């Protein structure tokens, strides 16, 4: 009998990656990376990648293998989130969208204005997530917002409603005859201080598989590799969760973080409770922090957003020719000379440093009748023992560890709760997405695969 070989595919915005995994031996037998062709015909790139796999493995028709795919092509899953109060339902909706692997391209609060609606129409997101009010709480805002969303044009066609359930009948009436696809799910914040994003995540993924993939021309790949089952960031998040928690009898690494700098954004994932690690600290989160949390720094990228990233070097010592070299990266140049390599390293590390600082919680000192008190906002990640690095800038760097050390706690910024003494792992072969996809069907083998190929550095 032949081995059980699976193909895992990631349709990225720049590259289409394929990994062929031998599940019985828990081994990567080949990987391929070819330029994405989503703008013309996505199957062209895929076929080229499969040809490469075939050449490397001797498998005659790799398209006949069992396969799973994820995609961030054609802009990824673009979502606009709307809530009532910024710190509460808007933030809860934002958590839900990010946790489902979306790119949040707009975040709105309170009653939408005409100008905001114009903006949203212009943004033309793939999905709008509409929330507002706890169950039995505020009704006016979400009903108002549903009313004006119902009057928008054809560019807005997928809406998920996840707010005050009392308003759903009124919202259904508002959307009647609007021609839009409206899905109703459980409130992302059913009561004050409670976050419930799982049902919403499920609906987002479903719309992604059923509708969005098709709209983006990714669905053509379906004939070759079956369904594209999730956005790529979601696959990475699934891998992070599996790696932290373990599966079946196989233990995981415990609480961890995954850092993923890229050309346009830097993603940070943490799978951790984030409760205070030192005594006398009180948590004051208005909304609980998600145990599996993803943040995206939209202005920290090594190519498209290099201008805003290099702004963070202000006041710091920069190497010679820094500006010209940055301009080169922006135009797509890869680091080659020693000077360029040094600049790229500095910028990558900076992206990680800033993104993890934003992601991690922080302490605030206040004075009470009983003396000094420490309040914790966000997650305490000082005790996290594992940091996994993925994404081009880390994987292809000559010194990945130095970049990842940007995630470390800093004595000169002691109130930011970044990891203090983590071990670093490198996703050398860019397999995290594959691990996340595989975890949907074969979690234990996916975990073994990750443990085998993540390299401690």
């Amino acid at each position: 009998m032949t081995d059980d070989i699976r193909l895992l595919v990631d349709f990225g915005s720049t590259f289409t990656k394929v990994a062929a995994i031998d599940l019985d031996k828990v081994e990567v037998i080949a990987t391929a990376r070819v330029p994405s062709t989503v703008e013309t015909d996505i199957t062209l790139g895929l076929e080229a990648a499969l040809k490469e796999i075939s050449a490397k493995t001797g498998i005659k028709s790799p398209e006949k293998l069992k396969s799973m795919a994820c995609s961030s092509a054609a802009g990824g899953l673009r979502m606009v989130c709307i809530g009532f109060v910024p710190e509460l339902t808007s933030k809860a909706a934002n958590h839900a969208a990010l946790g489902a692997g979306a790119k949040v391209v707009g975040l709105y609060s309170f009653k939408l204005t005409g100008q905001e609606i114009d903006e949203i129409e212009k943004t033309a997101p793939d999905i709008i997530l509409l929330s507002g009010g706890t169950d039995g709480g505020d009704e006016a805002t979400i009903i108002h917002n549903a009313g004006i969303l119902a009057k928008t044009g054809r560019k807005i066609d997928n809406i998920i409603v996840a707010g005050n359930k009392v308003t759903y009948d009124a919202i259904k009436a508002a959307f009647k005859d609007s021609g839009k696809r409206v899905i109703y799910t459980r409130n992302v914040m059913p009561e004050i201080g409670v976050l419930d994003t799982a049902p919403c995540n499920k609906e987002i993924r479903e719309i992604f598989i059923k509708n969005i993939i098709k709209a983006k021309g990714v669905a053509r790949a379906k004939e070759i590799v079956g369904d594209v089952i999730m956005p790529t960031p979601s696959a990475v998040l699934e891998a992070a969760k599996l790696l932290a928690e373990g599966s079946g009898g196989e233990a995981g690494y415990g609480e961890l973080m995954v850092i993923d700098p890229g050309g346009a954004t830097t993603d940070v994932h943490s799978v951790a409770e984030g409760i205070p690690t030192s005594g006398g600290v009180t948590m004051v989160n208005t909304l609980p922090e998600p145990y599996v949390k993803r943040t995206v720094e939209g202005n920290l990228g090594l190519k498209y957003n290099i201008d805003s990233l290099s702004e963070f070097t202000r006041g710091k010592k920069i190497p010679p020719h820094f500006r010209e070299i940055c301009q080169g990266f922006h135009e797509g140049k890869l680091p080659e000379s020693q000077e360029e390599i040094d600049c790229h390293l500095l910028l990558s590390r900076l992206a990680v440093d800033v993104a993890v600082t934003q992601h991690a919680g922080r302490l605030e000192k206040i004075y009470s009748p009983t003396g000094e008190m420490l309040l914790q906002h966000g997650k305490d990640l000082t005790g996290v023992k594992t940091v996994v690095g993925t994404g081009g800038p880390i994987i292809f760097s000559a010194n990945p560890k130095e970049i990842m050390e940007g995630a470390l706690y800093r004595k000169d910024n002691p109130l930011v709760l970044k990891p203090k003494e983590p071990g670093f792992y490198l996703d050398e072969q860019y397999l995290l997405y594959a691990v996340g996809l595989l975890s949907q069907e074969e979690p234990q083998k996916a975990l073994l695969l990750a443990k085998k190929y993540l390299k401690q550095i």
Partner: protein
Amino acid sequence: MKRVPTVITGTVGMDAHVIGTKVLSRALRDAGFKVVELGMQVTPEEFISVAQETKADAILMSSLYGMAELDLKDFNHKRMEAGLGDVLLYIGGNLVIGRYDPREIEPKFKALGFDRVYPPGAEPEIGIEDLKKDLKAKGKM
């Protein structure tokens, strides 16, 4: 028929100084209000859910231990989300630590969403008069 307004009383956060809120509750009852008396150490969330449940017209909080500002940091946001934007909010007591000028404290608590802010030792009657005035202005009395 004359409408009987419902009001909620209690001390907020970890504060256990219960005498003030008891005296106030009794005075409110004597003045004809329906009083939901929550007593001491009431969390902000509890005030919100009780107000939703009882369709309260006003919440009157006390705090003597100096931590009210911290306890109520996001209270305004939470009550908006809970659909309680129209509920009157009053607070009184030692609202910050140490000696202070009540006139300096008032804007702080108004910014936190409170309609009226009282210094320590304020007479219940003053608050009740204000309450009647504010409720009449909202057409609720």
